[in-house]
């Protein structure tokens, strides 16, 4: 029986590893794709793929609610908004590697590479320490009930502040949009408007002094 369990466990383990590899590869590949495409539309689609693979990774980490939220909110709402805007703007192409290596480019690659190396080193150094023994989690870990309880008890302040941030962003979005619309309206008005030139015989229009 235990051998079945072990086999099943090892088979489950292997399956996890395979799924993990696939999702991780998809993550990295789509990440590279986001950065490399010249058409922003394709980049956005790549990001959606990235989000989906991330959701898989979250599931592997027993964070079900977050995975669901990721797909629903991030991929479903935020990326759709992105795609709307890209569609509205016409998706102008932008050649990413034009111009050859410049000081800026070389320095950017160096900085990015340095960050990667450093994080890997940091993570690798601690591998022998606190990260090698993951805690045992119960079945309710990562469930909506758990998350909900945490939101409303231990992390109530974070919850409230997050809602305020969302409100502010919504208001800001409306203001940005309406401001732009008002400015455009004014720009259209200013062009044809002009004072009617009085005829020579007519006396000039008297403007009564404001009292």
């Amino acid at each position, binding site marked *: 029986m235990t051998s079945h369990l072990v086999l099943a466990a090892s088979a*489950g*383990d292997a399956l*996890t*590893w395979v*799924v993990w590899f696939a999702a*991780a590869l998809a993550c*990295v590949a789509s*990440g*590279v794709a*986001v*950065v490399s495409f010249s058409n*922003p539309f394709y*980049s956005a689609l790549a*990001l959606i793929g*990235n*989000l989906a693979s*991330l959701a898989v990774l979250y599931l592997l*980490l027993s*964070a079900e609610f*977050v995975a669901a939220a990721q797909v629903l*909110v*991030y991929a479903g709402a*935020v990326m759709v*908004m*992105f795609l709307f*805007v*890209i569609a*509205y*703007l016409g998706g*102008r192409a*932008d050649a*990413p590697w034009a111009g050859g290596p410049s000081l*800026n480019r070389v320095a*950017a*690659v160096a900085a*990015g590479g340095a*960050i990667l190396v450093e*994080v890997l080193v940091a*993570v690798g150094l601690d591998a022998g320490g*606190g*990260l*090698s023994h*993951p*805690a*045992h989690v119960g079945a309710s*870990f*990562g469930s909506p009930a758990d*998350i909900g309880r*945490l939101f409303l008890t231990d992390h109530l302040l*974070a919850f409230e*502040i*997050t809602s305020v*941030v*969302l409100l502010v*962003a919504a208001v*800001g979005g409306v203001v*940005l949009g309406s*401001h*732009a619309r008002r400015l*455009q309206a004014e720009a259209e008005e200013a062009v044809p408007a002009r004072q009617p030139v009085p005829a020579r015989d007519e006396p000039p229009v008297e403007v009564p002094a404001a009292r």
Partner: protein
Amino acid sequence: MRGPDVVWYLGVAAVMFSTGALGVLLRRSPLIVLLSLELMLNAANLALIAFSRGHGGGAGQIFALSVMAVAASEVVVGLGLIVAMARRKLALDVDKLTSLRG
């Protein structure tokens, strides 16, 4: 825990983060820059979830949800700015937006 350790997830997160950073630093279109920014935020989220699993507490997931909310707000404002720029017929090229030049 079945499958890879938390460390592996952190490695993926690191690679994603630096890729996103390179995208922010090297691309000229503001839309792509925003997308790369999203990539970086998601990498952070992954790291958070990984740590949450590693320690067994739910705080990391709460944090990740808040990050998602903030990322959404930031995208709203960023896209609003880009649309305003397009309305004013400004070139959508971060190299050309230098009116704050000293």
